[in-house]
C-alpha cells in the first residue's frame, strides 16, 4: 500500500517546488498524476505531441501557442519542474502576502500573468508585439471567418489604440495599460 507522503517524496525537489509555486501538497500530487497520465510512454518528460493529445486543447484556436509556452526555445521536452512552474502562473494572487523588498516576485503575480499572455503574442521574444505578430494571433483566433483586409484593419486599429510611443509595436508596458484589472482575479485553480 502506498503512502501519501511517500508519493510526495517521489517528486524530486518537491519542497522547493512547493515554496516557489505556492501549490499545496494535494495539488502537487494531483499535478504529478496528471503529468504522468499525459506522459503516456513514461519517459519522465513531456513533448509537444503529449499536449496535442488533449482533445479540448487541440480544438483551441491558440492551442499551439499555449503548448509552445511550456517549451523553452530550442528545447523539445518539458520536465515536471517546468510544467508546474508554468501552471503556477494561474494560481490566484496571494492578496495577503507581505511585500518583502528582497524576495523575488511570486510566479502568480498579476505582472507575471500579464507577461505570460504577452509572450503568447510576442513569439520572437523581442519584448514587443509587432504588427505581424498581432496579425498571426488574429489569424489563429479567427481563421477563415474573416478576410485578409479585415484582419489588417483590426490589427491597425488595435495598435493605434494601444501604441503610445508611436513605434508601431506594443511593448509590455503598453500591453499592461490596456489589460483589464479582472485579469489577475481570473484564478481557476482551487486554493
Amino acid at each position, binding site marked *: 500500500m*502506498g503512502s*501519501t507522503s511517500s508519493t510526495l517524496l517521489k517528486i524530486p525537489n518537491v519542497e522547493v517546488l512547493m515554496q516557489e509555486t505556492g501549490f499545496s501538497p494535494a495539488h502537487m500530487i494531483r499535478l504529478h498524476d496528471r503529468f504522468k497520465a499525459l506522459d503516456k510512454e513514461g519517459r519522465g518528460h513531456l513533448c509537444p505531441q503529449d499536449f496535442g493529445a488533449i482533445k*479540448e486543447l487541440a480544438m483551441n484556436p491558440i492551442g499551439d501557442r499555449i503548448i509552445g509556452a511550456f517549451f523553452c526555445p530550442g528545447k523539445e521536452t518539458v520536465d515536471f519542474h517546468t510544467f508546474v512552474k508554468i501552471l503556477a502562473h494561474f494560481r490566484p494572487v496571494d492578496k495577503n502576502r507581505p511585500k518583502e523588498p528582497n524576495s523575488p516576485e511570486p510566479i502568480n503575480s498579476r505582472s507575471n500573468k500579464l507577461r505570460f499572455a504577452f509572450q503568447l503574442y510576442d513569439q520572437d521574444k523581442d519584448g514587443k508585439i509587432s504588427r505581424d505578430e498581432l496579425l498571426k494571433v488574429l489569424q489563429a483566433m*479567427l481563421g477563415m471567418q*474573416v478576410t485578409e483586409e479585415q484582419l489588417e484593419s483590426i490589427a491597425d*486599429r488595435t495598435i493605434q489604440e494601444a501604441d503610445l510611443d508611436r513605434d508601431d509595436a506594443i511593448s509590455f508596458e503598453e500591453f499592461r495599460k490596456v489589460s*483589464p484589472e479582472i485579469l489577475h482575479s481570473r484564478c481557476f485553480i*482551487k486554493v
Partner: protein
Amino acid sequence: MEGAWEIAFVLFQVWLSIVVGLIVLPAMFGVSLGFTDIYIRVLVKTLEWATLRIQRGQKEQPTLPSQSANGIIEKDDGSMEEEIGELRRSHPKNLVGGDFTMCDAFYFCKKGIENIVEDQVTQRFTSEELASWNLLTRTNNNFRYISVRLTIIWGLGVFIRYCILLPLRITLAVIGLSWLVIGTTIVGLLPSSNAKNWLSDLVHITCYRICARGLSATIRYHNKENRPKKGGICVANHTSPIDIVILANDGCYAMVGQVHGGLMGVIQRSMVLSCPHVWFERSEMKDRHAVAKRLKDHIADKTKLPILIFPEGTCINNTSVMMFKKGSFEIGRTIYPVAIKYDPQFGDAFWNSAKYNIVSYLLRMMTSWAIVCNVWYLPPMTRQDGEDAVQFANRVKSAIAHQGGLVDLSWDGGLKREKVKESLKEEQQKMYSSMIVAICACGDGSLIKKA
C-alpha cells in the same frame, strides 16, 4: 508417487462435481442457491468497515491531504460570450462595443491551461477513481498504511481472490464456453422449427448464466416490461465486452460484430449454427450501405431475435456516454435503449484496450471482488417526423445517460485513437468571430461598425 496422483485426481473430480452440482446446474435453470448473495453481503460489510477505518485513520493524521475525487480546477461554466464579455467590461477603457481587444486571447489561454490540467475527454478513457479504497491493490491511489487489521484483511482478500475465486471462475468460464460451442453445434443439426429456436435460446441463456457466475456477477434488471422484442434494435452504452454477458442473461439477442479468428471465431461460427447472428467480414464493415442492408434484412424478419448494438463504437469508462454513431438509427425501426451502470466498488469493469489486451482484462475481471451492475430497460423509442438520425441518436443517448446517472457528452468515442477534426477548431473560430462586432460580411472588406 502413484498414490499422490490418484488422490489429486480424486480431489479434482470431487471439486469438479461440486462446482457443477452447486453452481453450473442451478445457473442453467436460473436458480440461485444464494452463495453469491451472501458473498456480496459479507463483502459490502467488509468494505464499509474498511472505509470507516481509513477515514478514521486519515482524521488522526490531519497533515495528510484527503483524496479529493473532484478536480483541482474551479471552472467558470460561462459560455465564450459571457467570459469574453466580462473581460471586456473590466477593460480600462470600459469598452462596450465588442471590438477585438488583446485580452480576448486570455480567454483562450485560460481555457487551454484548464484543459492541460484536466479535460473532459481523456479522463473517460481511463478507469474511474474511487472515493474510497476497495481493498484491491490495483485501485490503491495514495491510500497509506493505516492499521494491522486492515492489512490483514487486504492480505486475506488477495488470497481469496487469487487462490480460491480465480480457479473457480476460470473453470466456470471454460465450462460455459465449451457448453456454448457444443450446445449450439448440436442444436444446429436440427431442422428449422419452433423447437429449434426454443432450444437455441436455452443453450445461449444457460451459457451466459454460467459465464455470469464465472464473474460473480450480480445484476439487477429494472423495468423488465420494456425488454427488447423481436424485430427491434437494442442499444446500450458500452463499457466492456462483458456487457454482452450482462444483457444476455435476461434475454436472447442477435449479436453484431466483426468476424474474428482463433477461439473467438470458433465461438462465432458455432453460435450462428443455432440462430442467426450478424457477423461481418472486415471488408464488409467499410461499406456502410452493405452493413445497413444486412441489419435491415435481419430485423425485417420478425422471427429473428432483436439485434444488440453498441453505438459508441468503443469502450468508455462508465462515467459518461459519448457520441452515438448514427448508423444504427438510420435503419428506422423501434429502438430499445438500455442503460448499464457498473458499481466500481466491487470491480472496475472498464476495458482500457490501450493498456490491457483481452486476456489480461479477463484475468483482472476474474480477480476482482465481483461485478455488480444495474440494467435499466428504457421505453422503446422511434424516430419522430422532422428528426434526422443524428438528433434521434442524441435523444436516445440523453435518455440512457439520464437513467444511468452518466454524464452526457457529445464527444466522439473515436477520439480515443484519432485526432480532433479541424472542423471543431473552426467552430471555435466561428463563435469568436461572431463576437467581433466590427466585422460584417461586406464584400468590399471595409469595416462597418454595427449599431
